[in-house]
Structure formats: C-alpha cells, structure tokens
C-alpha cells in the first residue's frame, strides 16, 4: 500500500476551534472536519500549524496489496 499522493478526500480532525468557511459553522477541537474546499497547500499549512491532524495517514490509493493477490490465488 503506497501513501496517497493527494490530500483530497482524506479525513482530518480539528485540534483547535475552527471556523469552517465552507459550512459557515464552528468545528470543535476533536471533531472531524472536511477540508475538500481547500487546496493541498492550504491543508498542508493547517497540518503544519497544528490546527488539524490527518486521521488516516495512509489511504488506499486503489493499488492492490500483493499479499491480497497471493491470498486470492
């Protein structure tokens, strides 16, 4: 399984109180937050700034794990 190249579609958790510009509401610390309205650079900045954290560090990019293929045979 390779690490996903893009952050789009990934899941994130708020680490601080966040005003969500797309949904026009507050997201409380610890709650999941959808960041699909932001580009990858903006999301990276939020992660580096400690405002959000990625929940699923590794996401299946559609490439089958070779071990699964062996088991299927």
């Amino acid at each position, binding site marked *: 399984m390779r690490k996903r190249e893009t952050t789009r579609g990934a899941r994130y958790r*708020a680490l*601080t*109180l*966040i*005003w*969500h*510009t797309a949904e*026009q509401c*507050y*997201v409380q610390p610890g709650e999941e*937050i959808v*960041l699909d309205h*932001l580009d990858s650079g*903006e*999301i990276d*900045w*939020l992660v580096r*700034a400690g*405002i*959000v954290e990625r929940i699923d560090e590794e996401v299946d990019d559609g490439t089958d794990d070779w071990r699964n293929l062996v088991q299927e045979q």
Partner: protein
Amino acid sequence: MAQTTGGISFKSNKIEISTNGTTWADISGFANSVSVDGGDRQTGEAYTYDGDTAIIAIGKREPVEVTVRVVYTEGTGDPFETVRAAYEGGTNLYVRWSPKGGTAGNFQFATGAGYVTAFGYPVGEAGSGDPVLVEFTVMAASITKSAVA
C-alpha cells in the same frame, strides 16, 4: 533568543458584521479601525492577620466592547445602515475580524451575540475634506478566537 519574523501590521485585517451570526457581511472596504475595551476578569483581595500579602481570588470576566470606525456611506446594505438598524431596533449585532486577512490558517476573533451600545451619526465641519467616518460600539459577553479553515 532570535527575534520573531511573524509580526504583522493591521493593514490586511478582514472585518465582518452579522445580524444573526450566520450570514456575514465583509465590511473591510468600509472599516477604518477596530478596537477592544473591557473584558477584565474581576478580582478580589483579602488580608489576614497572619502573613504580609493579600489573598487573591478571581471572579468572572466583564463584557467586552468592540468599537469599529467605518466610512459613512448611504447604500442599503452598507455598514452604516445595517448598524443603525440594529442600534435603533435594539437587535443583535455580531462582529468578527481576522488580522491576517481571514485565509486558511489565520486566526479569527468573533463576538457572540452583542448589542450596539453606541452609534455615531454622521457629523463634520465645512472646511474638512476628509471622508466622513462614523463609529459604533458593540457590547458582547466575550470574544472567541478560532482558526479559519
């Protein structure tokens, strides 16, 4: 210790007002200044016969007053008319601002539901060429800091 490189001026500040806390109007193109007063936490002190210093206790935080100065204009949805209506009607007004401009990752400071406690009608002198500015003050329970995303 190294000197910070993160200091900013207030030139990029984004400021918005709302009458319901949901729909916000960007008044950055009207606003000239924003200031905050109040919000002190109440404290008390008492002395005993023993010891040489006071016993300190803390209480609640006082309300905040956010004062905004805007350019006086006469458009229907312009800040002067929006705030005047809230002031004269005694209805809620919310204020929020983001010193770095309100883009992703910036801090934002927002009042809860407040009331306009002071409102300046347009005044001026004949000899001045300055744009007319008016000032209003919103009293609210507190200011909430959040990050924009």
